[in-house]
């Protein structure tokens, strides 16, 4: 995980569901990362591919990632270049899929409200701060165990690292 993530944001509303993040019609065709990235947000935002070239943070409303357990809804965004998502809240399966794949997810109601589409945002993962337009928001540290998974770049890597330490 990067210590400092700095980028313009793409903003989305409440209740962005996994069917529009990664459409069901492509689910589980075994796809290569580049191909998955191409279909990300296809049904929600036709301009996503253009936006994501220079914007690496998504800001969204309530219950981001509601719906199915498909992991491509996380991976397609990761492969498209998204580094972090700030939302008012996340669907729980999505939240853990994100963590298991090393994608930074931050729940912050005020920040999600305050930040507007196109704003330049800085996420400081060392100090747990979101800085935007001269304002600073503090987000709670992820639980220690979870943070270790994100930092290792995902669940499988994390456990591999732990096992290596034991050896």
């Amino acid at each position, binding site marked *: 995980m990067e210590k400092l993530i700095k980028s313009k944001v793409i903003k989305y509303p409440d*209740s962005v*569901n996994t*069917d*529009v993040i990664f*459409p*069901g*019609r492509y*689910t*589980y*065709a*075994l796809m290569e990362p580049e191909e998955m990235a191409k279909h990300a947000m296809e*049904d929600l935002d036709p301009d996503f591919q253009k936006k994501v070239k220079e914007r690496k943070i998504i800001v969204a409303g*309530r*219950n981001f990632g*509601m*719906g*199915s*357990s*498909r*992991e491509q809804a*996380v991976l397609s965004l990761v492969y498209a270049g998204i580094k972090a998502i700030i939302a008012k*809240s996340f*669907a*729980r*399966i999505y939240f*853990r*899929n994100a963590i*298991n*794949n090393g994608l930074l997810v931050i729940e912050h109601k005020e920040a999600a409200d305050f930040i507007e589409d196109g704003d330049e945002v800085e996420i400081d993962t060392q100090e747990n701060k979101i800085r935007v337009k001269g304002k600073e928001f503090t987000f709670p540290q992820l*639980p*220690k*165990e*979870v943070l270790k*998974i994100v930092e290792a770049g*995902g*669940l*499988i890597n994390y*456990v*591999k690292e732990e096992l290596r330490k034991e050896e």
Partner: protein
Amino acid sequence: MGKTIVQKILSAHTKDEVKEGNIIWLDIDVRSARDFGGPNVVKHYREHYGAEKVDDPKKTFFTFDLVAPAKTIKYAINQSICRKFAREQGIKVYDVGSGIGTHVLMEHGHILPGNTAVGTDSHYNIVGAIGAFGQGMGDVDITFVFKTGKTWFEVPKTVKIKIKGKFEYPTTAKDLTLYILKHIKTDFALGRSIEFYGESVENLPLFGRITLLSMVTEMGGIIGYIPFTENTIEEVKKFTGASDFNVFYADQDAAYEKEIEIDVDGLESQVAAPPHPHNVYPAKDLKDVKVNMIYIGSCTNGREEDIESAWRILKGKKIKEGIVLSITPATRRAYKNLMEKGILQDLFDMGAIITNPSCAGCAEGHPGMTGEGEVSLNTSNRNFPGKQGKGKTYLTSPEVAAASAITGRITDPREVL
């Protein structure tokens, strides 16, 4: 301090302290992957663990329930990838035609009350209906559980929903479910375990419990429980074929984050209009909505009793011309029982399509999808745009679905009884 139901089940499966907000490492009794998540699980598994053995093949399953049988070569290849892996590892495959994975695993006594179970199905928490802990997870999670038998989990807070008042047939568990969704949307229970209390829920038979608790996912919840009654225990014994299992109840002094009371007295039939499952109206208020296709099935309403109830309304009546009515029993057992009772024969004679057991329309499934401008009315659990076709999807009970098949528009069943 006392414990809630979820805390008790989790406590029985971990060495860590089960305190709200704590991350615990949880022992998992049953793990499964479907024809969608399965191939990716196999891909991850081979990539990370090569030919190493899974933690316990007896506790590991594949269940093919989505595009089953495979309708394209891609899906067929995916399924063959799982079958090959299963053969190498000695894992049981509930292959195409078996039915919906969670239902099948309960019916065959693999998942029992008090167990923990995870799989690549966001409605895996349906196993709350038999007092188990279940959770839908992504491919990486399931790969990890296949290998280790464990997963990490944040102990959720528990909320309480008290249901006040009574309702009568043709109002059923689905109407209750949609009405609760209308009230709590996805906010009240997001990331929480829910316990439901009150006569109307506690009296629900097992199939009604399955309906309500399957849609805890749409409420944003982790899992839901209704305390077992004597009748539930008997039903679960019959359903799972097991008689030895742990039933957990909440302690008197268990701590709930919050409580809400919902009055359902005299509740009428309900329908969820697009684009969200919580966009709910009385069926009679939507009587001008013309329908093109109707299906009865899915993990939410695909039990034998659901289909039998629809049949009772349809019996002796005609399906409106132009309506495509599909029936998808949840499992092979449900299918067989309905067949032996002559119910499928009747429905067939009326002009219905009887498909093989599967997840029905939730995954481009066998009841078909809608084209632009068309309306699907069905008994599943999600009506998000694009989920079941280009058209609009309305969610409802088997009773409303049956009544609407007679009239060709959304219909309160009392209109045709």
